[in-house]
């Protein structure tokens, strides 16, 4: 489909872009965090309202650069949701000075655009570009507290790690181009179906693509940047990169592996199984001995990625369903957890788990919500997190990945320990902290929304499941 026809399909992105520029310009005059934030928020809302209109039927846009299908729609919605929540969190996040707030929102909105492009791109070129865009923006956001050494250190580390892994991916893409003479995924998948490709080359290609993507999803062995970056970054940004890029990474992973490369299932299933088990185990085991809650959540998010990967390994429709639902749940509960962390750190100026002692006395609501999110991360029914695990394990059992399932459940038992540790500090210890400062409205709104999400998605998940069912229509299999 040519450009002119395609435009209306990317209206949401355009809305975001325009409003981003408006914010940038207006920030020269207005430096009010909340005002700009609310404007950005309204832009997000507008975009998400427009989103369904923009997608009627599955089509390909911009000469097959983008594809507009229900799958991408699902992830676009997720991206917008994440962006909205993160904006709310940023509005309440004290560390973020008002000085460069305009630029901040500008970058955030651009990041959102990049995510929306990435999840819908149908061409390795587009994938590369949009991922790079996400990366660059996240580097900048991570280092956004320019006078904070930790922040800029995190930024640099993130950058170096990212640059290298995307470099590798790029090299892989170039080889793919060499193999198939094109970067258009749909053509490639036909070629793959035709078969006759050397095993070693394939392996190399898969690995090189994986390098870039597992950097985004923080899978072993590309996970090590996670704790440092999560700790150093402004917490609002941490929240963003812990869900946004991850979700996108998984989206791309799914699109490539379960759609285009699916004929090669036999080639990559073993690999993925390995990565999945390693990812969850490493994440969980290291998380046990963490003392900083942000680092702890970093490792936990590594582990969570491991669980999600089970769904991919299984490679069936139900596995797909599981992973999508898991991503949904993960977005809700992880954002929520970080939101609570922001609320707390706003008042006690610390991220050490010990400093959460007796939080229930000072701030019952927050500690209650945080416990809900943590329990959901543990996978206690009937919270959203449980159903994520449930569906994933269901898929695993269904296709006889018994060991994988057992590894998963054992891990979730181990995981319970460190999540409960935070709860223990909050409820079972006596408070050391002084009285907490009043909380900002946006933060509370955000966290409230997320908790409602966790509860609803846990108690009545039929609509969500139907939504997901529709979102994976394109799946061959």
């Amino acid at each position: 489909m040519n450009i002119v026809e395609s435009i209306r399909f990317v209206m949401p992105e355009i809305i975001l872009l325009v409003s981003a520029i408006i914010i940038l310009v207006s920030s020269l005059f207005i430096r009010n965090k909340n005002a700009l934030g609310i404007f950005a928020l309204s832009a997000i809302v507008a975009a998400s309202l427009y989103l369904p209109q923009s997608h009627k039927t599955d089509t390909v846009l911009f000469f097959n650069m983008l594809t507009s299908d229900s799958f991408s729609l699902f992830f676009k919605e997720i991206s917008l949701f994440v962006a909205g929540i993160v904006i709310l969190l940023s509005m309440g996040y004290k560390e973020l000075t008002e000085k460069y707030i305009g630029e901040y929102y500008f970058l955030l909105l651009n990041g959102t655009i990049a995510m929306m492009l990435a999840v819908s791109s149908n061409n390795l070129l587009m994938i590369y570009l949009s991922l790079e865009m996400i990366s660059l923006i996240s580097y900048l956001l991570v280092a956004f507290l320019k006078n904070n050494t930790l922040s800029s250190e995190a930024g640099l580390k993130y950058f170096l790690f990212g640059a290298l892994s995307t470099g590798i991916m790029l090299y892989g893409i170039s080889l793919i181009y060499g193999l198939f003479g094109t970067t258009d995924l749909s053509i490639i998948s036909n070629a793959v179906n035709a078969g006759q490709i050397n095993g070693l080359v394939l392996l190399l290609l898969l690995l090189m693509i994986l390098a870039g993507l597992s950097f985004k999803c923080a899978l072993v062995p590309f996970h090590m940047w996670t704790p440092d970056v999560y700790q150093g970054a402004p917490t609002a940004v941490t929240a963003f990169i812990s869900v946004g890029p991850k979700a996108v990474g998984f989206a791309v992973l799914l699109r490539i592996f379960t759609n285009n490369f699916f004929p090669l299932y036999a080639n990559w299933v073993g690999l993925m199984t390995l990565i999945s088990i390693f990812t969850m185990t490493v994440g969980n085991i290291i998380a046990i001995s963490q003392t900083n809650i942000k680092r702890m959540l970093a490792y936990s998010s590594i582990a969570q990625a491991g669980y999600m990967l089970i769904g991919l390994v299984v490679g069936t429709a139900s596995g797909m369903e599981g992973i999508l639902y898991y991503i949904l749940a993960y977005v809700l509960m992880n954002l929520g957890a970080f939101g609570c962390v922001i609320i707390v750190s706003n008042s006690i100026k610390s991220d050490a788990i010990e400093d959460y002692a007796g939080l229930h006395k000072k701030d019952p609501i927050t500690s209650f919500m945080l416990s809900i999110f943590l329990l959901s991360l543990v996978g206690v029914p009937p919270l959203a997190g449980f159903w994520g695990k449930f569906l994933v394990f269901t898929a695993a059992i269904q296709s006889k990945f018994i060991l994988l399932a057992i590894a998963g459940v054992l891990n979730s038992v181990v995981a319970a320990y460190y999540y409960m540790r935070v709860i223990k500090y909050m409820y079972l210890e006596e408070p050391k902290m002084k009285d907490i400062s009043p909380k900002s409205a946006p933060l509370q709104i955000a966290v409230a929304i997320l908790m409602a999400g966790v509860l609803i998605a846990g108690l009545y998940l039929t609509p969500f499941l139907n939504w997901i069912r529709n979102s994976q229509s394109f799946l061959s299999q």
Partner: protein
Amino acid sequence: MSFPIMTCIVFLPLAGGLLILFTPKKNVGLIKTIATAATGAALILSVVLLFNFDYAKSSIQFEECLRWIPSINISYHLGVDGISIGLVFLTTLLSFLACIGSYDIDIRQKEYFFLYLLLSTGMLGTFVALDLVLFYVLWEIVLVPMYFLIGIWGGPRKEYAAIKFFIYTLAGSIFMLLGILAFYFTSTPHTFSILELGQTTGALSLSMQIIIFIAFYLGFAVKVPVFPFHTWLPDAHVEAPTPISVLLAGVLLKMGGYGFLRISFPLLKDAAHYFALPFAILGVVNIVYGAIVAMAQTDFKKMVAYSSVSHMGFVMIGLASMSVTGVNGALLQMFNHGIITGGMFFLVGVLYVRAHTRDLNKFGGLGVKMPVYAGLLIVFSLASLGLPGLSGFISEFMSLLGSYAEFQLTTIISVLGIVITAGYFLYMLQRVLLGPLNEKLAGFSDMSKREIFVLLPLMIIVILIGVYPLAALKYQMATIEAFIQKIGGGVF
């Protein structure tokens, strides 16, 4: 659909809990009233249930079924039959009494009663859920409030006990989840409904059954608790506040036995037959080992805790026998143990409130100061050491009789367990009530009206069942008959 009585029974407490969330923290009186009202209402409803229950029928009654997650046909499916009705009554009763028993909780009452009510909803739900996933969900819901209840209001080593309990049971039940999933995929058509599985799973191969059985076993054995998995129990019981110990011993342990009775045995009968002997042996180990360990305890609560380990052993041998008498005995034993041990824990609490210690060697001669207490303690101890005429005897006798039909030797050994039980209970009585009065205790007052009110119903039930067991048995016999016919067991 008619009046959804099951739903009301299960969710009334939770409703109360939510109400409590919106009452001011200061207004403790109101909070207590709400909690009592909620549990009381549930109790009344369950009594209504008892009266409307048709105990000639062996099938599920008061069934309620809604589609919850149609896509993987998980349904909201409740109902009672002879197996669960007794336990439902037990749970509502104990929740109500323990709720009154928790009036002297003096810190953070609001949280306490909220969690308490959440807990009782979870327990009730577990007993009436007829859909495996729903069952699992409610089963897990019990964990969280229990963690807090032990961890916040518990004794000195509460945190250790709480996390131990949590991780332990979670580890057990997570395997149960795998078992549930295995059920789902081995059944045609795929279903989580226990009833449908009851019809279909005959087709399962033995090896598959064994795998699933083990998965479920891990889940249930931790709760019961069966021998190697029991060590969370003494800690949890000792550290938990009195009302919570009551519920732990009275209801939570039953969830395990109920699981065996509702899922493992009927749905996996070949595996059940396959594992019958090991099961019986473990039961005997529980009985004898628990008794022996109990004898060595100086902590009153710990002693009672280990005694429950011992008593649940009878449930196991009764089940293992897979005979009408044995299973009837096992089920009745669960009920009786709930009542008796619940009472025991209340009594321990009564003493603890006064003495602030549970060290048996620090008491003595209380029979003079507290005659009423002495009387009650004697009655419950005798009931729990299986004295004929009190409820404990009937169920133990039936379990033993049933298991004797299958496993003579193990039964005889467990009969010896009874002697040890008598030993440590009398030893306890001697150290607490008899002997010269320990003058440090001279200031003790006898039991208060409230305490007596809590214990009286339990004692009445103990005596009633002891004197006329059919009063309780009639509810379950028809169901058990059918149950045995289904899984193919002996008459005795």
